[in-house]
């Protein structure tokens, strides 16, 4: 028996959004009487953490700590329209809508503060801790708590804002295919190292080194969640997953988690994640969509590593032990 080692590389880019159908999302932001902020959406959190990220985006824009923002989603009676959570668009589209809504609310907040402090709103800034200060004279300040109370009970102002982010529909040109299918692009490069058992066709992914460029890591720990989980899913797609293991025979499709194969906790590759940030011009604080592309480069990187190890090309996914073994036997003949 021989365990043979190989490594492979792959580099990819990934589009954000789905401009081929028109791509809108809206957000509403308002303050409560005591200066907390509600973000109202109909966007869906699938587990990637949209609620938390929208809170951080709103907090950054208004100039308050994140724990003073509450995100209310997704209820069609209260939340304005969102196209949906797919196409790596959630953070990008909803984030931009939240920024716009939060800016409008912030402006009202500063106007009320300006009235209270008897200065111009343009002379005010937030300290990020819940206070509004006069630029250059920070001793002259008012808390956002007091500003909100004033707005509600004294000045009769609604500290609120509306946000709408729409990427207009792009219609592909019939003959040339000229189109604008998406907005910004995220990037990745993965180097995978594998061992292949040349008697059984079994593949062990030893290491994956992933470099992702995602515009801006809005919350680095949450980005890490996505990227680590995505890298695992990419390896899973490369080596394990299929609903039709013997296609064109459609029998024997897995119907449970025993039969539908995915790497278990004992199959994990040593995973390294490196993140680069080239802020996108149109993303919220420069963010691009990292959620989908992070599961892509591992697939070809593993495929190329398998070839590097044993010299057979498996051009059909998934790269199962059976496909490798058949190819090795064909190669030997």
């Amino acid at each position: 028996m021989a365990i043979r080692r190989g490594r492979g590389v792959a580099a990819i880019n990934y589009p954000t959004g789905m401009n081929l159908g028109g791509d809108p999302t809206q957000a509403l932001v308002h303050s409560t009487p005591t200066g907390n902020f509600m973000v109202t959406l109909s966007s869906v959190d699938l587990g990637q953490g949209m609620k938390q990220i929208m809170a951080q985006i709103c907090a950054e824009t208004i100039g308050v700590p994140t724990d003073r923002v509450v995100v209310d989603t997704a209820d069609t009676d209260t939340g304005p329209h969102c196209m949906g959570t797919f196409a790596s668009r959630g953070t990008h589209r909803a984030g931009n809508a939240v920024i716009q809504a939060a800016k409008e609310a912030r402006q009202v907040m500063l106007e009320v503060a300006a009235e209270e402090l008897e200065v111009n709103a343009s002379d005010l800034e937030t300290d990020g801790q819940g206070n509004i200060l006069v630029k250059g004279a920070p001793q002259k300040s008012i808390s956002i708590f007091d500003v909100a109370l004033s707005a509600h009970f004294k000045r009769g102002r609604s500290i609120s804002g509306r946000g709408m982010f729409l990427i207009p529909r792009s219609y592909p040109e019939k003959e040339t295919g000229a189109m604008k299918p998406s907005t910004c692009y995220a990037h990745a490069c993965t180097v995978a190292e594998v061992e292949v058992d040349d008697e059984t066709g079994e593949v062990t992914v030893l290491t994956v080194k992933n470099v992702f460029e995602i515009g801006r890591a809005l919350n680095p720990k949450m980005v890490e969640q996505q990227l680590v989980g995505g890298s695992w899913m990419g390896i899973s797609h490369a080596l394990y997953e299929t609903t039709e293991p013997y296609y064109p025979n459609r029998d024997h499709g897995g119907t449970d988690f025993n039969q539908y194969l995915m790497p278990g906790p004992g199959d994990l590759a040593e995973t390294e994640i490196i993140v680069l940030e080239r802020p996108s011009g149109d993303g919220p604080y420069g963010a691009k969509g990292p959620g989908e592309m992070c599961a892509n480069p591992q697939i070809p990187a593993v495929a190329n590593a398998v070839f590097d190890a044993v010299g057979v090309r498996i051009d059909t996914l998934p790269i199962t032990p059976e496909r490798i073994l058949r190819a090795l036997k064909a190669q030997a003949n």
Partner: protein
Amino acid sequence: MALALQTFTTVKDANAALTAAGSRYLGGGTLVVRAANEGDISVATLVRATDPALSTIALSGGKVRIGASATMAEIALHPELGTLAKAARAVGGPAIRNMATVGGNLFAPSPYGDFAVALLALDATVGTDDGDTPIETFLAGRDNSRAIVTSVSFMLPRAGSFRFLKVSRVKPKGVSVLSIAIVLEQAGNGTVSSARIALGCMADRPVRARAAENALLGKTLDQDGIAAALAAATEGTAPITDPIASAWYRAEVLPVHLGRLLLG
């Protein structure tokens, strides 16, 4: 017809209840409750027996008797059954092992039933109220078996004479590509004096690899000595095709894994 559970203290009463149409014996629940959950409406009445003897593990004079309701976890943790721990731990994850019983494992269709593979290599005897049956006979007739299995009994193999391997795609808890259990005795000169090899997933239920067993007799456990056994490993098998692996793949890699287990 709604689902119902009937509980009896004695196996005799439970056996009587099992004569009713739509009744199924409830062991650990990993097979029969799953079937009911998945919409198998042929399951109507679940029957169980709570006789404590069903859960007893007893050893005397080298002979082991395991009550059919003993779980994989109990076997894996039993201080005197250390040789079998690996086979017991091959079944499911921790929660499944706390539920899955020895009796149930005898009925688990391939690719399940890894512990039954071990029992087959151990040449166990399956006990019911009707008496004892050799495991190979029992497995062959299990589809028509109605009497509740009460126990399995076997001679505890000498340390080092029992070998077990489960091959799975997913680790540490995947369903079997195949499993192999071997009870093997060697003479003073190292040659094989007796061998029982049982295989999982090489048919719809555990089977013996008799040709390979015979080919090992009198041979030493080295590359040349086992060559004939490996060549004969798939003789008499009819491997299953399922989402885990095809029959072709199982047949291809059986000799590889058998060889590694024999030499390892």
